């Protein structure tokens, strides 16, 4: 039994719904917060209490620390769950929550801060024995120094601007002879972009996979790992599809990566649920960063490891030890998640907004829907475009992919474009099905959605359009037909009513 009594959820959308569900199952009361347009959002209608925290812009509502703390005080909440995004990895908010005498359902503020500073985190990890991508110590003075460092590290390497990111001042070097011009190019580009010519060097991974380890740590000194997730299908560093287990991780590698992840968490005094992210290539893995929060893709782990990660967060925050014990046979089966976003994959993932006119949610064996939308809900442009997560669980990876394809075919979101067609295409794509993945998958499969519609589909769409036009001209009829013996509108209507409307 958790020590928490009433949790304020400082978030919205599917993750707020997820946290409310976990609280309900543990008998904990919930307080939702909402912005003006979210008055009727699913999380507001599910919670025991709800407090308006401001207008649509997140900076004046979901990110307004003062209003959130006031809402917690007014409703008598004893704890705050931040979800992901918004203030979830804001160490100073976590500190303010604790200063207000509330329980922060997450890691200690100093652990958030330690992992939030990427350079500091890298150093700490190195000294904790966590492998980081090998690189030069500090900036390089000339091409010769760079060449020496590269000989030590191994090719290919990447020159990077010390002062910046975003691709500026970056050069891949594949052989010693390329250094002269690459070094000059990287320096001058860095100078122009950041006013700082210094460059350093790192091993370059051509086609790494993104593999991450879930950890749980309680206040009783127990830190465990809950296996890996593979999240290589990304676009501009945004994950789109995740799965567990990874098709390339066996029990031995899992144990090795798990031990490293536990060491990483312990090195910063971690508590709660967290994720240690790695890049993986050629049987080597390197620390990328640690996410000090519950992650979007946590449910794939839940499905194959028989764990409820959000409930564990609540228990740990309430002072209880981790309840979960690794089942005898785990991971059990295979789980896949597709992030259903309000983005149009046929238009470069352009954000789409609008009212959800209708929604058909997939169901049936092995399907889980973690959603933040409902029919009638207006999807605006103020918040993250994630609408819902569609998950499947099946005995094998192949069956899970087939199940996901089936579930995606059942999904209908009417009123705005979603990323679902992208997911459908991936589920049928041979490299994905064979587990040949890397974080460059999406750019290497840019033609995924280029396949033109087949003749049968065009025929059906044209027939439907003609019947709709007929229907519109004749006034609204629930059924329009031609050649089925009820082509006449009135006859069609009475046939419909006979079948479906006893009144």
């Amino acid at each position: 039994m958790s020590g928490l009594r009433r949790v304020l959820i400082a978030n919205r959308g599917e993750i707020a719904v997820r946290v409310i569900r976990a609280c309900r199952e543990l008998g904990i009361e919930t307080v939702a917060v909402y912005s003006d347009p979210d008055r009727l959002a699913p999380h507001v209608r599910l919670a025991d209490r709800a407090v308006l925290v401001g207008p649509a812009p997140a900076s004046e509502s979901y990110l307004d620390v003062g209003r959130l703390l006031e809402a917690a005080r007014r409703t008598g909440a004893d704890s705050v769950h931040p979800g992901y995004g918004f203030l979830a990895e804001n160490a100073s908010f976590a500190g303010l929550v604790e200063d207000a005498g509330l329980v922060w359902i997450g890691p200690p503020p100093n652990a958030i801060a330690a992992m939030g500073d990427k350079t500091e985190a890298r150093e700490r990890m190195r000294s904790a024995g966590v492998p980081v991508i090998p690189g030069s110590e500090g900036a390089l003075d000339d091409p010769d120094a760079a060449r020496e460092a590269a000989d030590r590290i191994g090719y290919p390497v990447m020159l990077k601007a010390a002062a910046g990111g975003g691709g500026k001042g970056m050069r891949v070097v594949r052989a010693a002879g390329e250094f002269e011009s690459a070094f000059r190019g990287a320096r001058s580009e860095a100078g122009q972009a950041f006013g700082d010519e210094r460059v350093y060097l790192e091993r370059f991974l051509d086609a790494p996979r993104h593999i991450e380890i879930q950890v749980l740590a309680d206040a009783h000194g127990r830190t465990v790992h809950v296996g890996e997730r593979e999240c290589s299908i990304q676009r501009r560093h945004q994950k789109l599809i995740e799965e567990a287990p990874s098709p390339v991780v066996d029990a031995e590698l899992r144990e090795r990566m798990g031990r490293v992840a536990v060491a990483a968490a312990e090195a910063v005094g971690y508590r709660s649920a967290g994720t240690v992210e790695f890049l993986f290539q050629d049987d080597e893995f390197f620390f990328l960063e640690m996410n000090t929060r519950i992650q979007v893709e946590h449910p794939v782990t839940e499905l194959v490891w028989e764990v409820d990660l959000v409930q564990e967060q609540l228990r740990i925050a309430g002072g209880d030890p981790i309840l979960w014990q690794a089942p005898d046979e785990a991971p059990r089966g295979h789980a896949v998640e597709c992030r259903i976003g309000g983005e149009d994959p046929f238009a470069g993932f352009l954000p789409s907004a609008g009212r959800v006119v209708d929604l058909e949610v997939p169901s049936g064996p092995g399907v889980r829907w973690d959603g933040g939308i409902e029919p009638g809900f207006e999807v605006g442009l103020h918040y993250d475009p994630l609408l819902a997560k569609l998950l499947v669980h099946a005995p094998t990876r192949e069956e899970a992919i087939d199940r996901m394809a089936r579930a995606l075919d059942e999904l209908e979101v009417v009123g705005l474009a979603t990323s679902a067609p992208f997911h459908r295409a991936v589920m049928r794509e041979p490299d994905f099905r064979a587990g040949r993945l890397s974080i460059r998958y999406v750019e290497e499969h840019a033609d995924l959605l280029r396949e033109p519609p087949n003749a049968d589909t065009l025929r059906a769409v044209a027939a439907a359009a003609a019947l709709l036009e007929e229907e519109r001209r004749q006034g609204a009829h629930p059924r329009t037909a031609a050649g089925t013996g009820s082509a006449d509108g009135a006859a069609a209507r009475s046939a419909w009513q006979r079948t479906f409307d006893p009144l």
Partner: protein
Amino acid sequence: MKYFVTIGEERLEIELGSGGATFGTGETVPVELAAVPGTALRHLLLGDEGWRLTAVREEDGWTLSTRGRRFRVRIEDERTHAIRELSGVEGSDEGPKELRAPMPGLVVRVLVEAGQEVERGDGLVVMEAMKMENELRADAAGRVSEIRVQEGATVAQGQVLVTLEAEGA
């Protein structure tokens, strides 16, 4: 009644008669479209072939989706089609084109000037929505006839941003 249906770049002719739908190929199939009351969910029977569809009425046609694909569909009857043919404007790819805002948002930059020639795929306007910048491009070559927005303006979904004259028009 005979209809001319445009689905993306495809054009289909279809005639609804007492025997069903007759396609350009001459084949006739009984058809029936039923609606789940109060929703956009439809079910089409094309002969005995079942199609789950959703249909939303738009200003100039329909948005239909089925089996994971969305289609913008324009449709006209024979008479309208004939009048338009006679008026010398062939097809819908000619004549003035309008670039409309695909979503509500902020106009960050206007990349063209009135009178400028553009190629298909050239950027016209950059809009910001959900904190992401999105470049809106010309879907056909032509000349910019009018700029209807200013940088910094907030625009509604569907609002006309730029009008283009097709090449040679």
